[in-house]
């Protein structure tokens, strides 16, 4: 047979402090849909960016249709027939579909009607029902994705990379996408399908390559030959879980209880779909799951930052379902949001103003704020939580992630909460920062606080949590005892495979 459509061999890509790809390989046969699987941080996107000319690999060979390529820009990759649809779309909202499709690759003399006709023809060839004269801002996310795919086809991409294409789609749209992909494959094109949803991979793809820790752990496995359990195992590996620290106390009464919670996100999709959970005093409950399965909406809704469609939330026996965020804080609910600088802290404001954000109402003196009390509060925070800060009057933005998280968590803990909800509290921190934050959470547990912790790092959850709940598509689909559960069985549940 002919050359593989794409051959990546021994790709290394290092970033400061991180090795994203450590000798990863990938072989895609022409005329197939090839899945690239892996957990967050497994190096999928980096590897694809090396193929699409966004990055230049430090080592390794890129071959497209048998020819070695050294791309120095995405334009080179496009010229070689590689198209990529990124997770964030790159469209001009005020332009029409046709204008977006031909943008940057239009003929010298542009005739609107000719372009509209050609784009319509192109769309029809692959079974799209595109409306070329509609402006892109009117389109749904699924329709926009089709425009992105058309863009790549317009440039005659022989290899199309789709980075988590179904993340923005409704289930029906995902099925439609599957049909379009089939058409393209029948046309002799090849598709690389990045995903971590196993059910899609098994229904859309012909072969799969699995990445873990920047390396290829399974190369071009025919989908028909493996089952979902095996793929899940390959993705998460069989790492021995870290020893659980000795407990000092046993969980007490229920501190927070969430019943039948439903939340709709900004896209109008149901992000949280009937979640019920309880967290007891002196217990850490972990929420495991692949990013984008409703974790953020769940914690935001508990903290009062999202509108709730249905369900109840109670903290220490009092119903806070409709209470504003500051009232929930006063009721004993602390929240460490995932987005430290966009939600939890105001990066342009100095430490003192950030430190009192939750309780400034108590420092009121007539129309004024007691700034001496605010800076004393900030000083205490710095001392108690070991924040390393130069000048306290400078904006927070210049601080490191670890210090920011100490300030944020410290502020939330200074109200002596009964319940702490922490979303991705250690993500992006250096080792020292991770340890400090984990230690604080364990101290809280030992002091009898109820902790609900969302993390994408399964090892972290296995080490810290007492119970682990798995969240998939807005629902809790599994509950595990962190002491006895294996990484593989939780991983399998995370991937949506039927246990």
């Amino acid at each position: 047979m002919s050359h593989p459509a794409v051959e990546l061999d021994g790709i290394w890509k290092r970033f400061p402090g991180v090795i994203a790809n450590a000798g990863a390989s990938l072989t895609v046969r022409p005329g197939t849909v090839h899945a690239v699987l892996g957990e967050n941080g497994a190096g999928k996107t980096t590897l694809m960016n090396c193929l699409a000319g966004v990055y230049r690999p430090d080592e390794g060979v890129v071959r497209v249709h048998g020819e070695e390529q050294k791309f120095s820009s995405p334009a080179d990759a496009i010229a070689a027939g590689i198209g990529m649809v990124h997770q964030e779309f790159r469209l001009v909202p005020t332009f029409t579909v046709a204008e977006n499709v031909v943008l940057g690759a239009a003929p010298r003399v542009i005739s609107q009607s000719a372009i509209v006709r050609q784009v319509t023809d192109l769309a029809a060839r692959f079974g799209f029902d595109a409306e070329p004269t509609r402006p892109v801002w009117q389109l749904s996310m699924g329709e926009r994705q089709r425009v992105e795919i058309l863009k790549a086809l317009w440039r005659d991409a022989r290899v199309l990379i789709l980075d988590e294409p179904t993340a923005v789609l409704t289930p029906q749209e995902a099925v439609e996408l599957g049909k379009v992909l089939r058409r393209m494959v029948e046309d002799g094109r090849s598709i690389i399908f990045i995903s971590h949803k196993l059910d899609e991979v098994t229904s859309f793809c012909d072969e799969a390559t699995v990445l873990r820790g920047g390396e290829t752990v399974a190369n071009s496995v025919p989908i028909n030959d493996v089952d979902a359990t095996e793929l899940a195992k390959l993705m998460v590996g069989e790492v021995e879980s870290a020893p659980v620290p000795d407990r000092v106390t046993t969980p007490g009464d229920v501190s927070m209880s969430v019943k039948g919670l439903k939340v709709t996100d900004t896209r109008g999709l149901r992000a949280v779909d009937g979640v019920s959970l309880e967290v007891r005093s002196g217990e850490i409950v972990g929420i495991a799951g692949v990013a984008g399965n409703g974790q953020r909406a769940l914690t935001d809704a508990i903290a009062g930052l999202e509108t709730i469609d249905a369900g109840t939330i109670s903290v220490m026996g009092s119903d806070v379902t409709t209470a504003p965020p500051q009232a929930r804080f006063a009721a004993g609910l602390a929240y460490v949001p995932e987005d430290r600088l966009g939600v939890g802290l105001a990066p342009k404001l100095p430490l003192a103003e950030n430190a009192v954000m939750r309780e400034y109402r108590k420092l009121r003196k007539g129309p004024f704020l007691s700034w001496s009390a605010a800076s004393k509060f900030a000083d205490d925070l710095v001392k108690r939580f070991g924040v390393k800060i130069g000048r306290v009057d400078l904006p927070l933005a210049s601080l490191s992630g670890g210090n920011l998280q100490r300030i944020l968590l410290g502020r939330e803990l200074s109200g002596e909460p009964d319940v702490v909800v922490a979303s991705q509290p250690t993500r992006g921190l250096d080792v020292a920062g991770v340890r400090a934050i984990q230690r604080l959470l364990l101290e809280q547990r030992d002091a009898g606080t109820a902790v609900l912790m969302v993390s994408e790092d399964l090892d972290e959850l296995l080490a810290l949590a007492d119970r682990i709940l798995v969240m998939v598509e807005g629902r809790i689909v599994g509950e595990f005892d962190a002491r006895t559960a294996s990484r593989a069985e939780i991983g399998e549940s995370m991937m949506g495979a039927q246990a």
Partner: protein
Amino acid sequence: MKRLALARRETPTRGGAPAAFLIGLSFALALGAILLTISGDSVIEVYQRMFERSLGSKDVISATLNRATPMALAGLAVSIAATMGLWNIGAEGQILFGATAATFVGRLFPDLPGPVLIVAMLLGAAIGGALWALGPGLARAEIGVSEIITTLMLNEVALRLIQYLQNGPWKDPDGFSFAQITPRPEQAGLGDIWERAHLGVVIALVLIIGFAWFASRSVWGYELRIAGSSAKTAAYAGISMRSKILGVLLLSGAVAGFAGGIELSGTAVRLNENIANGYGFAGIIVAALALMRPSGVALVALAFGAVQVGGVSIQSIGVSSAVADILQALILFGAIGATVLSNYQVKMVERKVAV
């Protein structure tokens, strides 16, 4: 891959802005000298006259102060809205309607004693300005309509309203066939306090300093800074974005309207369609040059006023109005550009790639 790029400084250099202002000014004056040489005017004579007629004597300094006052207030108005990331492009219209509201109060109580009437008229001006910002404020807070468009459009409405009033209901019966509005009550004039400078100069200065101080110390100012940081942070801290957006636009409008009241009682004798005189738009430039900090608008407005007064003065020694305009623009642009750039530094950065 490395390249040179302009990056925002994490912390502004101390004294960087004033230094950059002076350097930018010198650069603009040098460019202006070339222009004047080409146009055949005497560089030294023109610059000398510009200075003399704007800052050269007590008399002209006091005139410059009067001119700077409404621009400083308009600048304050714009910078207040900017603390929330909002653009009040309608200070011009708010000045006009503020002055209209003050005139209305004057017509309602023409016999009140001077001080009482002045206070009532200024209050009316502030309320009028706030009223002119109410629509844009509500539209922005409740349904997210861009305040830039709505405030801008209302400028024209305020202008037409005054034109209607001066041709109709408020037309001066003693103005013969001339369409002008009846003068405001005489006792409602702000007295001169130093040379030609009227009391409004001091009132504006007190207002600006007072606001800057209040915003930095008060709970209200603090909430504004949080809300201006991000809507999500505001929600997290339990601050209502809607009430903050509405409040800040109302206050911004009130300050601009107040400027209209000051103009009516300070320099004008009657409401007319030129009473705003572009001060509302100048206020946007003033606020930008002051880097949207309320504390900076007074100084910038003074510089702006001097440039304007100086620019007008050189036309009487034969500099064409076009050249005078270019010269004004050069000086402002040079100073703005340099001051804004002082917040940036040139450094080598890694070529940015999307991940």
